[in-house]
């Protein structure tokens, strides 16, 4: 099975040593839910022209880590985050960082599609409205159109922008959520198992979309599907029991992991 996971050409072309400054970097990030330590010191760099995948068994802290990156853990009263996370060298947990601005720069797509019970247009226009990105109606329309086009949904919905977003199919809803995230022009997009509620065809569409979005946005994606990680990502991090066990080029992780635990997981010995 591993042999079929052919590394993409970009992987091999990249230098092994990173000289560039990363888009986001996490150092020794720990998360506690009450007294329980869910994340035990994770350090990772996320670069802006590639897709970083987080894999690992259920409950190992992938979502928890992803939520640290745009401070969505703030919404959970019992959660406490330590360590530093930087976006372009700025500490996102510092007092100087406005969480509203942070989330506009680091967008998020959830596991279950969660369009607002508003029209398709309003769903996409929501973010730009809040952040005042459009001066007038036509600018707003342009942003909505551009975002829907980038999310590969425009052709399917251009004639029914006033219909409710919740009336779309699951896959369309998820692309609508991606369009919604894109509309505020983020720098990083976080995706937490974006395909787990979708059928294979809708999944293929989203994966294709991730390919197209790569390079424009830094993308971090959590997935349970290892083929998907291999297909869409250039870097993979393997999490286990709240630790980040191994992080490296996707091709290396899948063909030649350094750690026994990684090996066991990707060969399906436990999950």
């Amino acid at each position, binding site marked *: 099975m591993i042999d079929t996971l052919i590394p993409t050409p970009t992987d091999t072309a990249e230098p092994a040593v990173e000289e560039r400054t990363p888009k986001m970097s996490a150092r020794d990030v720990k998360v506690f839910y009450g007294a329980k330590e869910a994340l035990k010191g994770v350090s990772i760099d996320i670069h802006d022209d590639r897709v970083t995948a987080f894999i690992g068994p259920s409950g190992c802290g992938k979502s928890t880590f992803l939520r640290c990156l745009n401070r969505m853990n703030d919404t959970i009263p019992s959660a406490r985050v330590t360590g530093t996370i930087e976006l372009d060298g700025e500490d996102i947990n510092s007092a100087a960082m406005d969480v509203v*601005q942070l989330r506009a720069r680091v967008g998020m797509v*959830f596991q279950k599609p*969660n369009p*607002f*019970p508003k029209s398709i247009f309003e769903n996409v226009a929501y*973010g730009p409205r*809040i952040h005042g990105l459009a001066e007038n109606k036509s600018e707003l329309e342009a942003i909505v159109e551009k975002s829907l086009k980038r999310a590969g949904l425009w052709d399917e919905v251009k004639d029914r922008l006033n219909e409710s977003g919740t009336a779309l199919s699951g896959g369309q809803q998820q692309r609508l959520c991606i369009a919604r995230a894109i509309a505020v022009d983020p720098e990083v997009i976080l995706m937490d198992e974006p395909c787990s509620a979708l059928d294979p065809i809708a999944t293929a569409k989203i994966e294709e979309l991730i390919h197209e979005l790569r390079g424009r946005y830094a993308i971090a994606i959590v997935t349970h599907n290892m083929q998907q990680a291999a297909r869409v990502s250039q870097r993979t991090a393997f999490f286990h029991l709240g630790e980040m066990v191994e992080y490296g080029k996707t091709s290396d992780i899948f063909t030649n992991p350094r750690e026994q635990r990684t090996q066991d997981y990707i060969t399906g010995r436990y999950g």
Partner: protein
Amino acid sequence: MTLQLALVAILVIAATAGLFARKRATGLRGGGIRLNSLPNYHALFVGLWTALPALLFLAIWAPVQSGLVEQAVLASPAGQQLPDFQMVRDTILSEARDIATGRIAAGFNPESNAIAPVYSAAYGKYSMVGSALAVLIALGSALLAMRLVKVDFRARSGVERLMMGLLVGASLIAILTTLGIVLSLLFESLRFFKQVSPTEFLFGTSWSPQTAIRADQAGSSGAFGSVPLFWGTAFIGAIIAMIVAIPLGLMSAIFLTQYAPARARAWLKPILEILAGVPTVVYGYFAALTVAPLVRDFGLAIGIESASSESALAAGLVMGIMIIPFVSSMADDSIAAVPQAMRDGSLALGATKSETIKKVVLPAALPGVVGGVLLAVSRAIGETMIVVMAAGLAANMTANPFASVTTVTTQIVQLLTGDQEFDSAKTLAAFALGLALFVITLILNLIALRVVRKYREAYE
């Protein structure tokens, strides 16, 4: 008296029959065979079957008996001499009954003293008959039910069916009562509309229900235009009270669900709900004695000469406070029903908490909130005590909150208190008003329930 004894006897028979049935069932089991149903079910089955038919008989017999007694009394020689005039005769009969049952020593009308023994005898005879029949029925059904106690008898499902029957009966009582209320309202209202045309009642703008007692009396012709009353009701209950209750209720619901820490919520919510438990008459005092003078003084201070001490504003303000828990608990429920995923989606786009509430949570919760508000309105316009104590009696069509207006419920109380003839248009008007109010609150409730249900479907 005898009927009460019969009641006790029936219960004793039922309990005994039940005990016997259990003993018998236990005995059957003693043979090492498995019973279809536990002995207790046999006991319950036999007990219920013994008691229910007899009790049903008693319930039917009681009214039949008083009819029979009256007939017997009227047929007696003393009864035949009673005056023909219905009202006098009824008075004498009821006095005779009171003497016979020992409630009073002697009647006001001399005839009643003569009839009392006849009454007493007839009553004794018929209640004896009734009691005997009831006890016989109980014994008979006990015997029949006992014969069913066998190894394979499904007493358990029998009890189940009886229970269902009981429950159906209980809910039927509530439904039938509602029906009865509606019918009696309807009936009396029809009598009213024979005297006053529905158009005048529904669209007339002048209300002064004093009808002349004598034809030559001047100045009190009686006008039954209910529009001012409904205006007053709407002004106090649907406008002023809602201006108070909707924002306060909604904001406290938002605070409680979205901002308050769990500990604060655990304290604040019950305190808010205490408001719903305050007797309305207490709100009435509060409105009349505390708020009304304040409102009047305030009105006078800002130069409104017509400020009355029975202002619409005082009643409406207090009613609004009373309604807050309704609005807030309905709003609370519907806000809590908005999925967390929706909130997260908005927050993750960089929306603040209040933007999220304003643009995502509230619109999604709106139907539930609207439903709650409609229910609150329907309660507010039917509310009586506050307006009786704090709103005025003058039927004014004014939008001045410092002036006095009257409401439908206040007028109903007004029309029905004191000595009234039950066939004058004035008294009957109370029923027409009640019917109209009932119809309005019914419609409001129906709409509210529909709105709420539709909204529930959207998320489940």
